[in-house]
């Protein structure tokens, strides 16, 4: 049994150096469509039409992307003769629509933040990516981020899923049980816009229709580093300057 200790040591440090250094390992992020200028109006129109969730909007020859609605179906990448631009990276955290500013937690929390994760009808992908943050390759403990078992000691409520009707009550109870310095982060396209599920008698079309949301991490699912970026923003360790309010209209 003692051999585990030896094997563990021998593996060495596997964790990413992010945020101190950039992380470019292949496959850490699937990327996402970016705003694109097309040669003709028709091509821009085609790109907007192929998007099943209306995440792509055409303005003349150019298109813009509302990432909160993008469900990563890749049609605009692989099924168009002139595809959309694709951007690498994972620093995707943004402010919720119609919100001009959000404040991170006070400085005292910067290196010790306790997170309560709530599954509000998630398909399993976002939740799985949150779970990956605890694996040695990401190891969020090194940054002072901890999962907590009780809302009483939680600083951040991390919500995945579109908020299904049967989880709405438990989600609200969790939120109410948290200290009022709490922040709320919606992770994934379903949590930001309802995703493919949309609004129905069973789905609330995103967390912001139930709770005040401070930050959003769009993506379907956002890769672990995108979620880590969100945590760093909430902790005030990534600057808010890069965060600009989004202008596209949302339902």
């Amino acid at each position, binding site marked *: 049994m003692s051999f585990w200790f030896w094997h563990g040591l021998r593996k060495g440090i596997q964790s990413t150096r992010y945020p101190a250094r950039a992380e470019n390992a292949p496959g850490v992020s699937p990327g996402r469509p970016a705003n694109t200028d097309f040669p003709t109006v028709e091509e821009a129109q085609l790109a907007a039409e192929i998007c099943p969730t209306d995440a792509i909007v055409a303005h003349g020859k150019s298109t813009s992307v509302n990432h909160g609605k993008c469900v990563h179906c*890749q049609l605009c990448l692989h099924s168009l003769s002139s595809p959309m631009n694709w951007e690498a990276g994972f620093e995707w955290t943004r402010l919720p629509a119609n919100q001009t500013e959000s404040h991170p937690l006070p400085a005292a929390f910067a290196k010790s933040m306790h997170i309560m994760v709530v599954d509000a009808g998630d398909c399993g992908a976002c939740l799985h990516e949150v779970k990956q943050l605890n694996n040695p390759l990401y190891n969020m403990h090194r940054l002072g981020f901890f999962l907590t078992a009780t809302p009483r000691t939680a600083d951040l409520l991390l919500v995945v899923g579109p908020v*299904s009707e049967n989880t709405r009550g438990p989600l609200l109870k969790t939120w109410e049980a948290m200290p009022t310095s709490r922040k709320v982060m919606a992770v994934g396209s379903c949590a930001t816009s309802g995703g493919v599920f949309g609004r129905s008698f069973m789905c609330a079309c995103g967390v912001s229709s139930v709770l005040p949301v401070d930050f959003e991490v769009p993506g379907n699912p956002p890769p672990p580093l995108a979620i880590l970026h969100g945590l760093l923003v909430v902790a005030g360790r990534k600057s808010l300057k890069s965060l600009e309010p989004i202008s596209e209209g949302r339902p």
Partner: protein
Amino acid sequence: MANHSSPIEGGNITGLADLTGILVERFGAQVVQMRAGRNFILSLSLAQLSALPALSRFLFWEQGCAFGGIIAEENSSSWQMHYAFLQPGTGWIDVEFSMPIETTSLPSIVAEVHAADWHEREIEDLFGIHFENHPRLGDFVLHDQIWHEGIDPMRKSFSASQAQFEGKVDLEWQPLLVVGDPGSFAMPVGPIYEGGVGESLHFLLETVGEDVIRAVPRLFYNYRAVEKIAEGRTVADALLLAERFAATSAFAHSLAFCLAAERIAGVEAPPRAAALRVLLAELERLRHHAGAIAAICESTALAVSAAQAAIIEENLLRSSSVFADHRYLFGLNTPGGLTRDFGSEQCRRLLVAADKAESDLLILEGRLRLSSSFLDRLEDVGVVTGDRARDLNLVGPIGRASAQHCDLRRACSYSGYGRFEFEVPYETEGDGYARLRVLFAEATQSAKLIHQVAGSLEDGPVRVNYEVNRPGAALGWAEAPRGAALHWLRVDEEGVVERYRAITPSFNNWLGFHVAAENFAFQDFPIILATFGLSATECDR
């Protein structure tokens, strides 16, 4: 080591011709009319509903069929019911009947086929059809403390887009408690998972202290009414739902959905697409099993092994992202084939990743086998005997750990699985360790399959033109990482979905969870849960 063989399930397997003969003799030609269909090798139209339980017993117990599920469809003037049974090696048998729309009850088959329990409860809850003599109907998908009785959301008259209900009823809902020993009490666990990251689901542990006598899951917190909101969408839009209701087995579910859509339109994916689908499905299985193994290691608090399994899983997620631009293989399947082709260099890099994962898993398995304190926590924990597994029709790795050999890739081949050589490993002990061994053995087989497919890829297109030009219904199936997945699809002449039904392995297997979670020590609960490796969201849809 896992056993390697793939015998056909127990029971007296008779050929199709013999089967029809016995059916006529036993039930009479007036009661059961037989015809071969496009979907099913045999459709049995029932004229007398009273024959349903006896016919179900005959197929399930005497013919050794596996139970697929129940599909209810509401047409304008009638109910159309399908009971799907699988005769391994032969094909799907559909027991179908229609009844007037005014019908409010039909005979339950639960007393004959226990596996039908939750199917009937779901139909009762969502369609409002009563099943006579079912032991417990009521609170199931729609939780009674927030939903009025008498709401039947799957009925056509119910609009999915209607506003959510305000002013919920606050019934004094109480869970059913069975244990009556002095000093016994019920401990609620969930729905918000305490201590880490977990899906929304609730358990009620009935206990007298340290020993838990009974643990019953309460599911459907993540019910997003996928089957309901798919209605009225185009096939392409419904595919987005089929792919995204349970992301950890997204490819298998989208594959089953596409196979159903293709069967309706009468098209078939070209050979290269079919082979690549096998490759991607096995990549998903390999990644899923690595994750399931990581979860089992974590549940026993053997931290280094959990970390190493998690690294294997993360590396496979990254390889998937490099190979297919998505860590969970979204956006690949499309009715008619795949959305894109993959080059030989891409395949070669994937092979390297799969080989690495396979050898890392072998090393991990070898070390775990030498860790006595780890094995102590898995052996004889959460035992499901072969008889109980058969009784409850457990599928996938959980069923195979209890000697249920049924694997759709073998029992009813699809997407060209019949062309490839692979084994279906199984175990007989039915405990947590048997389930872990099955996961390891299946992961090895998946890596082998990936090699075979990549080595035998034919050139050619990966997509045929798909157009819905006729109304129809079809069944698509796939062996998802957690077991058999069935997708039933009905479209009208314009390609709009009229009925979509997804029968998932987690739905099947959660029914059997209480068997493994009977009379156990409280500290074993996370281990039983992890070795079952079920997904609540895949069950809830």
